[in-house]
């Protein structure tokens, strides 16, 4: 079967600095991949590149069968990204946020409710505006939005950070379910034990390159 992500010799540049310096990576369908590496290694950059937010300067990059070096918007509608920031609207309630992101892919009301439930947000919190949430509650909301989007390729940047023990369990279970259902998951994390137990495979990112 064709790999979901296939990078070879990918170079990406931000402000003149090569954030990725010739990265090679192949990820198969249904795989949960852990990206680990020191601060500034290029994990975030790699995920943003796969999401089509960072242009490919050199090399070839195929995501879900689309050549994103040629058109980086091509694969986007099938990709879901949770970055360092949450992408939430602070004035809207938790439920409204999840409903909005769900609506962008035509999710039904029930699917949205299920996503909220999945991240433990269905009680009092659902009606609270995001501006009034704690850091971990926001992270959960962002995860619920991601769940509602039903992507084929999940890109998560330090998803465990800020979550409590129950939240981490919810997250891991969600990712395992998604992978079992055929989605592909790439997780960048510094919490090696937790994420290591979750992942099928681990790669090291160092100096903008990938080491298996």
């Amino acid at each position, binding site marked *: 079967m064709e790999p979901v992500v296939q990078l070879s010799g990918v*170079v990406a*540049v931000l*402000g*003149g*600095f*090569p954030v990725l*310096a*010739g990265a090679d990576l192949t990820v198969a369908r249904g795989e949960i991949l852990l990206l680990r590496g*020191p601060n500034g*290694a290029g994990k975030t950059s790699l995920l943003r590149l796969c999401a089509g937010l960072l*242009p490919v*300067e050199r090399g070839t990059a195929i995501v879900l069968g689309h050549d994103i070096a040629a058109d980086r918007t091509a694969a986007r509608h099938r990709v879901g990204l949770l970055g360092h920031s949450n992408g939430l609207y602070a004035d809207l309630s938790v439920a409204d946020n999840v409903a909005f992101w769900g609506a962008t892919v035509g999710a039904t009301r029930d699917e949205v409710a299920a996503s909220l439930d999945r991240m433990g947000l269905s009680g009092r919190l659902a009606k609270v505006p995001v501006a009034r949430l704690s850091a971990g509650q926001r992270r959960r909301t962002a995860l619920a939005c991601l769940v509602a989007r039903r992507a084929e390729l999940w890109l998560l940047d330090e998803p465990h950070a800020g979550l409590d023990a129950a939240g981490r369990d919810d997250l891991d279970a969600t990712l395992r379910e998604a992978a079992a259902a055929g989605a592909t998951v790439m997780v960048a994390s510094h919490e090696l034990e937790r994420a290591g137990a979750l992942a099928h495979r681990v790669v090291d990112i*160092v*100096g*903008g*390159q990938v*080491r298996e």
Partner: protein
Amino acid sequence: MPDLSPVSIARPTGTRFSRVLGIASLVGIAWLVVFGLFLSPNDATQKAGVRILYIHVPSAWLAYLAFIVTGVSSAAYLFKRTRSLTWDRIAGASAEVGVLFMGVTLVSGSLWGRISWGIFWTWDSRLTTTAFLFVTYIGYLAVRGLGGTHQQRARRSAIIALLATLEVPLVHFSVKWWRPLHQQESVAEGKLDGLMLFTLFVGIIAFTLLYVWLVLHRQRVLAMEDALDDQGLDVALAERRAEGAQV
């Protein structure tokens, strides 16, 4: 697209052609000085003030030409079959030179206004359009400076340039209808005598040569900057990979 930028960072931006062009425009300017300051006669009403005309009008025309070139090159960049960063750099270089010439028009026009009307500025339609045009292309240059990859810069600024090209006639006509010309030019068309007309002609030729020379060089400098970016990237890439090797 002919290769207008046979650059390598080690080589100067001059080529034989551009040197000839440079000398030609220098000669043209020398002619302009001789004709404009010494040989052409004083105007009946304007006296020596009329001599500003020989800078004012050519620079205005060249600014228009420059912005047209920017628009055309931007379109050429956006059109898939001719897509090349050279078009983007020509657009950028031309806009820079155009802004420069438009600045000269504004300053020379203001000084002229001070001499002949007694004021620096009036809100007549042509002056107002000129001012808006000037600002629009300063905005375009600001957008070029926003950063990103070369392709991103090129695409974004090409769109802004096309919008500007489309918007310029709108601005022009709306301003014209808003303020019908109430300031009559003191140098009416017919009044220019033969030598004056010739001097103006010399000025236009000289400025056109200067324009081509400036754009050619500026475009090459931009190409070098881009090449330097790429070359810097190779060095930075090696460093970045070495960062990995240490660990």
